[in-house]
């Protein structure tokens, strides 16, 4: 863990006995070290974008609420609650605040979305796109090494 502002930098350390790294191996090491962080930020941006828009324009999203009339007040409240959760998860994932837990919760939310979309519309390009995001969340849930994580 680094000493600067509680940002953890647990990562693979270079072996002093290893041969001089090539550019390719450096790139691979860089990807291995920072890939999960980049994935965290990108997943967080997706969640933040949807969370922000669900909070600021809930009426546009009520059509996605299963089993509830899109015109109902209840549907708007559900969208607002969903947007609030998404924004919280987004900040937690991007900042690295309990990132694996946040990613796990995000994976559950995305799983619900994928199942709902599949039931209502079948396997379409939109559903498969969400499956990809779900996979990203699952991957982050299983990733123990996190750089730039706010642990304090």
């Amino acid at each position: 863990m680094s000493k600067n502002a509680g940002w953890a930098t647990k990562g693979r350390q270079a072996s002093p006995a290893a041969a001089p790294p090539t550019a390719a191996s450096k790139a691979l090491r860089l990807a291995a070290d920072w890939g999960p962080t980049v994935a965290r930020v990108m997943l967080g941006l997706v969640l933040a974008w949807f969370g922000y828009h669900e909070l600021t324009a809930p009426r546009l999203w009520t059509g996605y609420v299963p089993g509830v009339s899109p015109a109902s007040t209840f549907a708007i409240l559900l969208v607002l609650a969903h947007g609030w959760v998404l924004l919280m998860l987004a900040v937690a994932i991007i900042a690295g605040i309990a990132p694996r837990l946040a990613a796990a919760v995000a994976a559950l939310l995305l799983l619900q979305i994928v199942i709902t979309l599949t039931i209502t519309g079948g396997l379409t390009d939109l559903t498969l796109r969400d499956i990809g995001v779900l996979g990203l969340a699952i991957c982050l849930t299983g990733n123990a090494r996190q750089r730039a994580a706010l642990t304090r």
Partner: protein
Amino acid sequence: MRIAGETIGARGTAVLAVTAVVAIALGAHGWSGRNSGLPPNGLSGTGLSGTRPAASPSPSTPASQGPTAAPSRPPAQGPTAPPTPGPKLSSQSYASYAFLVWPGTPSASAKAAEIGLIISVRRQGTGLSVSAGVAGQSAPTAKYYPTGARVYVIEASLGDDSGNSDYNLGDDGLVVTDAQGRILQ
């Protein structure tokens, strides 16, 4: 604080607390504007949800052939009382989401916005008969508008359309304006 094996420190807690407050403020803003942003005859008011497969427009009444109708309006009985002009479409927040359907040939964006909907415009007497509804649902009703009316389909997000389906009808709507761009109520 440890939750499920992960530590949340004081700084993390503070960040989450600030986020929670900001999110609540955004939600309050969204709640206060929940009745704005789409035309009153938005298709979300039909009580429909989920994906609606798009049916092909009626061969006899393509959008490029005639007038418009709001799905929630009563059926048109012919040229009765003319609709009242309201505010200009260009002054509405959803103006940037409006795609012209009539007159002329709908653009590619307009056609994409029509996915999941059935919009029919046809000449009727000296005016237009317009109808709009959700594909796969009961036949849409029609309404009469005077000559010169312009028909727009509203689609806030084209990203919720997939193939021939519209996943979210909550951001769809139909607007008819007069020749001056004023929304006909």
